[in-house]
């Protein structure tokens, strides 16, 4: 066992990821959640009468004020009453809970988005109530990466048509008209209204600096500008002289149809644009080759198709691998020096997509999953645990938690046990020393997610190895269970009880590299509170190494685009903006509905 004795740590100076180095004893370490706990639990919010006390108090007075204490619940109750009156049919009524006992018999408290100073109502963290969360998923679902080289070869080698930077620019201008639903080639066609599909566009990227220089800047995702120099070099070298389109179909189209629509919609408009831009015959056989390349051979979906029992096509959340998801989130290029922050942003985004939307809605149909998921990205509890781990690792393993490749520690079971044990016990003890954190994470599954995500991400950062991180996750579960005599709910920890066995299994479908696992992996397909953590561990391994990407450089570059409505470099801040009703989503229909 490793007790902590005091060493160089990094104290957070704000709730953001901006930190400054100071020398203090570990026992005096300022807890990152302290400020949030104080505001949540010792200040009055709404009319919950929770003024006073300390965040370390074990006793408190519960006022049993029901929904009347909370502004958002009151707003919702009023809306429910108006709805009932308007339609002559009852609707939302918080007094229906438990035969008339109102929700909120204990204090209803707000939450903070971790890594921000934004205080929000927890109801606003349900994706139905949060336009930023909706847009994050919209922006993933409506995106495909499409290769240009096969089409160019068809044009050049089969048809003898010259392809130059000028023709590519002309083609892209055409496609940015056609992809949202503008007509080319044929006349007297209906078209989509540009104001309804204003979020739809296509850009290209390439590892070839010479080609990139000749592409009109409006069409280019400039790797040199979007990424730190070292990452840019790796990305360009990996992508080479190939060129790719990052295509985002209209949010509105994607919402009305599904993820599998994305490649079809894109391919149809791509085909028409080639015909138009290169003055082809609309009926010549080469069009079929272009179509095949766009629909199948040259297209990369964000998510793979799922088997029939889950009945989803490509680009649905159950098919988005943890590696792809780690690449979709862009924090790795904005704070490359801070691997923990990268992992924490992936946790937040991953818990939202995988728990709230995929398992919570697609798979289960319920609304309760939000409560599990938010534990991973609110109130800095997980953040505190992971940053403690970073300090612990840097102290004991000579800076192994700093971004880099030559400072990593060996990925062996002794290292996993050391880091994961220290991380878990530190986190468990915080729940014991700070009863308000225990009250915030009032479910064992919430605590398990937070503790294991911290442990797993820490191991991954230190070793640069995702499967070692996963191993740390499972050990954390075992330790947590034995410390407290409880873990998650019935099914929650099912996969954790047997998880260690498949980290390095000799059976290929069980022992897969974490980057290539996803929500439909055996045992992962059913239980909330895991997949966001797994995605974080994936990203942590590569963030710890300072890698430019986790598994797919094309996906990483595709989302390095400021024109996307959702900022993938800081998803937690975006969720906060959604809660505060400041986020501007795409795909709105106000143009075509009566004004209110």
């Amino acid at each position, binding site marked *: 066992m490793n007790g902590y004795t005091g060493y160089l740590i990094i104290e957070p100076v704000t709730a953001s990821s901006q930190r400054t180095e100071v020398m203090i004893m570990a026992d005096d370490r300022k807890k990152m959640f302290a400020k949030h706990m104080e505001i949540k639990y010792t200040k009055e919010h709404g009319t919950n009468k929770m003024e006073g006390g300390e965040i370390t*108090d074990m006793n408190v*007075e519960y006022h049993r004020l029901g929904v009347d204490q909370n502004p958002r619940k009151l707003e919702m109750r009023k809306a429910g009453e108006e709805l009932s009156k308007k339609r002559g049919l009852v609707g939302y009524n918080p007094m229906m809970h438990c035969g008339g006992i109102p929700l909120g018999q*204990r204090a209803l408290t707000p939450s903070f988005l971790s890594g921000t100073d934004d205080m929000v109502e927890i109801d606003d963290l349900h994706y139905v109530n949060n336009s930023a969360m909706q847009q994050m998923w919209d922006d993933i679902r409506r995106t495909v990466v499409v290769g240009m080289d096969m089409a160019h070869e068809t044009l050049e080698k089969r048809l003898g048509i010259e392809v130059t930077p000028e023709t590519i620019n002309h083609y892209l201008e055409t496609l940015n008209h056609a992809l949202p639903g503008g007509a080319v080639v044929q006349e007297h066609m209906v078209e989509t209204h540009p104001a309804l599909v204003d979020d739809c566009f296509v850009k290209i990227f390439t590892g070839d600096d010479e080609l990139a220089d000749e592409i009109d800047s409006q069409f280019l995702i400039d790797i040199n500008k979007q990424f730190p120099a070292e990452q840019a070099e790796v990305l360009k070298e990996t992508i080479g002289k190939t060129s790719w389109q990052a295509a985002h179909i209209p949010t509105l189209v994607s919402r009305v149809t599904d993820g599998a629509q994305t490649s079809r919609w894109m391919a149809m408009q791509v085909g028409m644009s080639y015909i138009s831009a290169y003055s082809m015959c609309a009926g010549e056989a080469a069009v079929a080759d272009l179509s095949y390349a766009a629909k199948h051979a040259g297209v990369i979906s964000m998510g793979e198709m799922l088997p029939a029992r889950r009945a989803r096509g490509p680009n649905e959340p159950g098919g988005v691998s943890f590696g792809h998801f780690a690449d979709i989130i862009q924090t790795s290029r904005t704070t490359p020096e801070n691997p923990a922050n990268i992992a924490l942003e992936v946790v937040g985004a991953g818990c939202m997509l995988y728990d709230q939307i995929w398992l919570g809605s697609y798979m289960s149909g319920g609304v309760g999953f939000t409560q599990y998921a938010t534990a991973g990205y609110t109130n800095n509890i997980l953040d505190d645990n992971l940053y403690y781990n970073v300090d612990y690792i840097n102290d004991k393993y000579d800076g192994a938690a700093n971004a880099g490749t030559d400072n990593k520690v060996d990925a062996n079971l002794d290292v996993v046990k050391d880091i994961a044990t220290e991380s878990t016990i530190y986190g468990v003890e915080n729940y014991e020393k700070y009863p308000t954190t225990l009250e915030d994470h009032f479910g064992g599954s919430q605590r398990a997610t937070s503790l294991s995500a911290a442990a797993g991400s820490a191991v991954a950062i230190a070793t640069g190895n995702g499967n070692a991180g996963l191993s740390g996750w499972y050990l954390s579960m075992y*330790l947590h*269970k034995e410390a407290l005599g409880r*873990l998650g709910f019935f099914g929650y920890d099912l996969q954790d009880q047997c998880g260690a066995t498949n980290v390095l299994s000799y059976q290929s479908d069980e022992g897969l590299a974490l980057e290539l696992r996803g929500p439909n992996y055996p045992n992962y397909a059913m239980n909330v509170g895991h997949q966001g953590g797994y995605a974080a561990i994936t990203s942590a391994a590569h963030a710890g190494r300072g890698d430019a990407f986790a598994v797919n450089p094309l996906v990483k570059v595709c989302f390095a685009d400021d024109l996307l409505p959702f900022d993938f470099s800081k998803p937690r801040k975006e969720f906060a903006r959604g809660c505060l009703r400041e986020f501007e989503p795409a795909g709105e229909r106000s143009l075509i509905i009566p004004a209110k």
Partner: protein
Amino acid sequence: MAYEPQFYPGATSVAENRRKHMSGKVEKLRDVADDDLAMILGHRAPGSDYPSTHPPLAEMGEPECSVREMVAPTPGAAAGDRVRYVQFADSMYNAPATPYFRSYMAAINFRGVDPGTLSGRQVVEARERDMEEIAKFQLETEMTCPALGGLRGATVHGHSLRLPEDGLMFDMLDRCRVEDGNVIMHKDQVGRPIDKKVILGKPMSAEEAAKRTTIYRVDNVAFRDDPEVIEWVHRVFDNRTCYGFKPEN
């Protein structure tokens, strides 16, 4: 020499209490009358017959079966009782029991039980009279402090909330209160009012709860201070990991 189960590692009072819970060798502290138990469970009226889902096994003419011959039915199964539940929640502030150790106790010491283990609660489903036996066992012994744990059929998040000023584990449905030094229950498991106040006994003092608890806490017996348990967890972890990698080792 007859085999003696060791049940659990560890050198601390928490480890010892875990061994006691698992072995079923726990101290009886109070009495709960059968009719009172029936009332707070809320499944049948006190004194009424047990509803049945099939005739007594003796009257059913069971098929010839070696397993049936080897395994004597529990009283509830023999009588044809329906399956009913008892669910406990235990505070994380030194309640004597924890969900896993309630489940281990049930599975090791009682037959015909279906324990379910969650973070805030622990449920046992069994034939009704068998379930009542295990419910009574837990309520009457040191496994339960009536203030820090108790019957909760629904809404169990009080297990991790700070304690109210009266020392009772928070309960949104307000099923229990302290009256004249005793904890009384005036609603059943799922919060329906009952006709009398059922006395569950005196709350344990903070010192007694700390002595009898099966949860490690940094302000009582810290988990990190029981190295044998941590070593054992590591061994389980090593074996599971290595088995998946290379089973022959």
